[in-house]
């Protein structure tokens, strides 16, 4: 059971880190950025190929990987969101455009083979790969029959630290106030001299960088990097997390992440493996049916 608890916490941290970026964008733009999972994957993929195919050191690779995903945030804003905003299109439009971008990113990585134009990004096509042993220092300790693996243990402080930083920035800095102002009332924000477009770009950069980092940590800790880790493994779970925590609430996303981790592991231990699959989604459905604003979200605004 102890081990299972650890498992829950480890995966919970990754969920949380992924969901924070997701929920940040929703909180400020009221838009579901479905390209976020692709960005998550991109972060892991780029970092991996930098290390393995371009012989960079892990830390350099991470830095570049995060930079790339941050840049991808800008792409999302300029390609998928801003044009729609200009045309006053409703958010469902942004849903579709981000789906489109996600398709493109995943396909690009999936087609990354030694003989294609994407080879500098990725060469393993649809394969799943893992960092070769030794590239990432990853000692494993055995304490009281529990397995503690550095890469996984590290995730917890990293995630918590990042979320505290983000929380601090949003709460106590001028930029944070600006972001919250844009979230609450962009008109007023503009009248106070904020450049709303700038703030939105910033939001997506932060969100995507976090997503990318989450991807890297996922790849390192779970030894699984493939074009599909975003789409298949975390996208819908990310949704579950931000709904559990309350759409748009950062602490909500964090707690939601750990909560989902727990729920899934509990379901496995208590209900058995076969029942587990649907649990996350059943939880998602029930949450929305019973308490749409989530555990920590503000009361839903009636859009009338």
């Amino acid at each position, binding site marked *: 059971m102890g081990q299972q608890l650890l*498992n829950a916490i480890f995966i919970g941290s990754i969920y949380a880190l992924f969901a924070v970026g997701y929920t940040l964008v929703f909180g400020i733009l009221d838009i579901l950025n479905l390209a976020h999972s692709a960005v998550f994957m991109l972060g892991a993929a780029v970092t991996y190929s930098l290390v393995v195919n371009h012989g960079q050191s892990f830390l350099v690779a991470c830095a570049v990987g995060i930079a790339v995903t941050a840049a991808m945030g800008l792409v999302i804003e300029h390609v998928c969101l801003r044009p729609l905003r200009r045309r006053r299109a409703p958010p469902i439009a942004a849903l579709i455009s981000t789906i489109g971008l996600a398709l493109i990113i995943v396909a690009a990585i999936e*087609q990354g083979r030694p003989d294609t134009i994407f080879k500098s990004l990725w060469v393993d*096509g649809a394969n*799943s790969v*893992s960092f070769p042993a030794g590239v990432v220092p990853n000692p494993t300790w055995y304490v009281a029959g529990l397995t503690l693996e550095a890469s996984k243990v590290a995730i917890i402080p990293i995630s918590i630290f990042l979320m505290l930083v983000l929380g601090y920035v949003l709460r106590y800095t001028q930029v944070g106030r600006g972001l919250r102002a844009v979230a609450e009332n962009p008109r007023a924000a503009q009248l106070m001299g904020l450049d709303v477009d700038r703030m939105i770009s910033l939001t997506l950069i932060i969100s995507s960088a976090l997503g990318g980092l989450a991807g890297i940590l996922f790849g390192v800790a779970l030894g699984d990097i493939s074009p599909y880790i975003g789409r*298949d493994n975390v996208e819908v779970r990310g949704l579950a997390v931000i709904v559990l925590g309350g759409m748009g609430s950062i602490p909500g996303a964090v707690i939601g992440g750990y909560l989902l981790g727990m729920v899934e592991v509990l379901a496995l231990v208590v209900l058995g*493996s076969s029942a587990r699959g649907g649990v996350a989604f059943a939880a998602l459905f029930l949450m929305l049916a019973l308490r749409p604003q989530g555990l920590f979200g503000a009361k839903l605004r009636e859009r009338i």
Partner: protein
Amino acid sequence: MKVVRVVSCLVAAILIAACGSGGGSSAKVIKLGAILSITGAGGVYGPQSRDGMMLAVKQINAAGGVNGVQISLTVKDDASDKAQATQLTQTLIQQEQDLALLGPTLSNSALGAHPLAETLKTPILAVSTTGIHIVPDCNFPASSTACKYVFRDSLGEETAIPDNIQSYAADQHPKTGVLLVAQDDKFSSDGGAIVQTTVGKYGITLLKTIKFNKAEADLAPYVTQAVQLHPDVIFITSLGGIPAKIMTEARKQNWKGQFLGGNGFNTATVSTQAGAAGTGARSGSAWYLGNNFPSNADFVAAYKAEYNKNPDQFAAQGYTAIKILADSVSRANLTFSDLAGDRDKLRTAMESVNIQTPLGPFQFTASHDVKQTVWVIAMDGNGGFTLVHEIPAS
């Protein structure tokens, strides 16, 4: 204006088409079509199969073709999508007028494509599908009778897994096992079912069957559950990166037992991904890189020369598939005018194929399944495999 444009387009189209068709039909050529998953999840296997086939075609044509007739192979990508695989099967048969088909890559696609080929009386040779119901009955609607047109040169899990378990049982006499099976894809579920029915025969008690979904983010909880039962063996039937993930996790959790699996183990990528954790993990394979009997040694050498990388099982099976068809064609004395007739002749010829291939001496069983040696291999811990046993076809 608009009208003009449309009309001109039409005219152009007709002209192009006219030239196109004018060129094609006359020449005498063996038209083969392959439906493979180049993109999508199946992209892990499709490309290798394709490379293997292409190599074989190249060699044969270079050597003057089959009785002087060149082979033309068109490879179509089904994007790992069942619907597209089936649609492609139809067009290749009815529009491209191919003599015979190869593929598709994935089991669930095969369950759509094979019955169709059967109805359209066109030989189709599976090159990578190892699940249940591929042959003989190919899950064909409303008839338990064997499919006459469906063949398979890929070693079925129904043979590979039991052989593997048997040989390991003989070596180590394990008492207990746990099965980890991905429940949300055909291939893996098939494998799981086979394991469950087999283990009893060799005195292994299955402590628990743990099902999970491929889309699971973290498999650690399942592994923990398995490890905590302290089994002698962990059976893994799943695809892609998952076996490697499980092995790595289990070793980290300090489990020292034996991994047994199926086709999902048999690619270099899996072995590489598993790394040290995979050392000794055994599976029954249709092919072994290190075999140095000529038909394989030559293949490996040629493949390296062509693509400067090692072939894998799927490449070998793809290569073999073309060889099988070529041999059958050479014995089928086709008319090249009556397509339906030729397809039937080819089918009959295929049933009596008996050649040396990279997989070893190759024949079809009465039920069109593979009849070949099973090579029990074990991961060597750095991306390769070592041969453990050689179980000749019974």
